[in-house]
């Protein structure tokens, strides 16, 4: 059974079909790429999958459970976490706190225990600190745990966003252009990190990317979108050599 199963996903904005009859099957543990020219509707697909937009038609199933039309927070609780094309960190919080907000729904103490600093507060906070530092170590951000997120360099901000998404304990991780704005060295590192996350956390990853080196380097399967519709779908090698795809990218 597929981890993510999407059928006939469609949404229109003011008469324009931004995403039309989108379908995808992603198996557990897969590294899957969603590519296509600018404006093809890739981010809209992410927004549909995470409940930011409600689809006009179609069905989204995660591990066989229908999650179509759920609210964003319930979709996150169901097991989908994401990053954003334009980085959305909690800028005025520290790097550590950014990850701790991600852990929010997995560690509990009441408001009263928090305000009156009862023993449970210290116990749970300590556990949260430990877990958050573990995650930060994976992304080599542990040295900057006390920095404000906005003070991190760009590449590290992208990594922190992934760490924060992972902190929510997802089954499926959606990465929206993780390599945007990175130099080739940083992109190389990022590829290693993504593979590491997949293996270490047993994660399934769907990513949007323009960097063909990254896509061909780590994605096992691809879906190509053009004008909101699926152009082609399949193994990475086959898809990238498809003349249709080359035309879509380079134009006639």
């Amino acid at each position, binding site marked *: 059974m597929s981890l993510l199963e999407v059928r006939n996903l469609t949404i229109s904005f003011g008469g324009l079909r931004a995403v039309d009859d989108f379908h995808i099957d992603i198996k557990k543990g897969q590294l899957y790429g969603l590519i296509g020219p600018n404006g093809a509707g890739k981010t809209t697909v992410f927004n549909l999958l995470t409940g930011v937009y409600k689809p006009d038609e179609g069905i989204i199933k995660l591990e066989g459970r229908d999650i179509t039309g759920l609210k964003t927070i319930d979709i996150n609780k169901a097991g989908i976490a994401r990053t954003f094309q334009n980085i959305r960190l909690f800028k*005025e919080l520290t790097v550590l706190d950014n990850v701790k907000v991600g852990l*929010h729904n997995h560690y509990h103490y009441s408001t009263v225990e928090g305000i*009156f600093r009862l023993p449970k507060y210290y116990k749970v906070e300590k556990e949260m600190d430990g877990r958050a530092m573990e995650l930060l170590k994976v992304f080599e951000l542990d040295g900057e*745990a006390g920095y*404000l997120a906005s*003070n991190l360099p760009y590449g590290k901000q992208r990594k922190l966003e992934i760490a924060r*998404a992972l902190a929510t304990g997802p089954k499926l991780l959606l990465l929206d252009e993780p390599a945007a704005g990175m130099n080739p060295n940083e992109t190389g590192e990022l590829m290693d990190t993504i593979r590491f996350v997949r293996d270490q956390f047993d994660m399934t990853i769907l990513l949007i990317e323009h960097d063909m080196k990254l896509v061909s380097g780590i994605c096992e399967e691809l879906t190509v979108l053009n004008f909101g519709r699926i152009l082609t779908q399949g193994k990475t090698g086959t898809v990238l050599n498809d003349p249709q795809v080359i035309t879509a990218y380079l134009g006639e």
Partner: protein
Amino acid sequence: MKKMKMTKTAKNNLITYIMVFLAYIAVQILLATGNISSLMKGLLVPLCIYVMLAVSLNLTVGILGELSLGHAGFMCVGAFSSAFFSKCMDGAMPDGVRFLLALLIGAAAAGFFGILIGIPVLRLKGDYLAIVTLAFGEIIKNLVNVLYIGKDKNGFHFSMKDSISLHLEEEGQVIVNGAQGITGTPHDATFTIGIILIFISLIIILNLINSRDGRAIMSIRDNRIAAESIGINITKYKLMAFSISASIAGAAGVLYAHNLSTLTALPKNFGYNMSIMILVFVVLGGIGNIRGSIIAAIILTLLPELLRGLSDYRMLIYAIVLIAMMLFNWSPKAVAWKERLKERYFPKRLRKEKEVK
């Protein structure tokens, strides 16, 4: 690194507590040695009220990141509900117990209104939220001014018209008398109680900020969409911050009501102007900076009173301070200019500032 961060926050909070405590000791010494004018004496309880209002509004504006212009409305709810209770119960129980209950009732009533208003209002954003909180504040003030409640042997009577339509028995007593408000509320508020309430407010707010709930609230402020995407319940945490902020304002209202013999709802004390004045404290002290709010509230209350000649210009000074502070702290050009200055003259401090708290 982690240890250092913890201690830095804790140290910062400790400085705030010590500052309030020292201020209290200093005033006590002045009082004991008789070195304090009666004018200043009269200002002590209002000072505590303003400090509570400023720190609680900062929870909404600085920590939650939403502009509320109806803060005085919550103070009004706290003041009237508690004064009503105290009037009814005067003599029926020991004064200390009665005042404690009045405090709880005032804070709870204001918190309840915070939730009541918050549920619809917090769906809105920015400007809309500001104008609707302003509207709610005005509605509350308006309602209180046409509210008549009386008591006789048959129980309580309500009216929204005038005291005659309460149809009280001979021995009956009008408790809330429309625009004349409530008279004869017991004078329970003292400076010491005010300081204790400030401490409680600070403990609640500072500890909330540095907890799981506080992080969730600040994450909404920094990026609502990202917060939602990682499973933060926006409505719940907005309401939490808003209602806690309202309760503390309500408690400040209790203090206000029990410091005066006559409680009326005027534009001056519970209107939009009051809400703006509290906002000025918050802005001057630094949005999100709790200790700053305390200092700003004290300075801006004392200065015009001390420099009597300035009292005509008080509001004008507030207005100029507000505009200048906003331009200086928030205009991208001013921000960039300050960064450059710091880089040139205090490169070390700048590096330190990047590591926070």
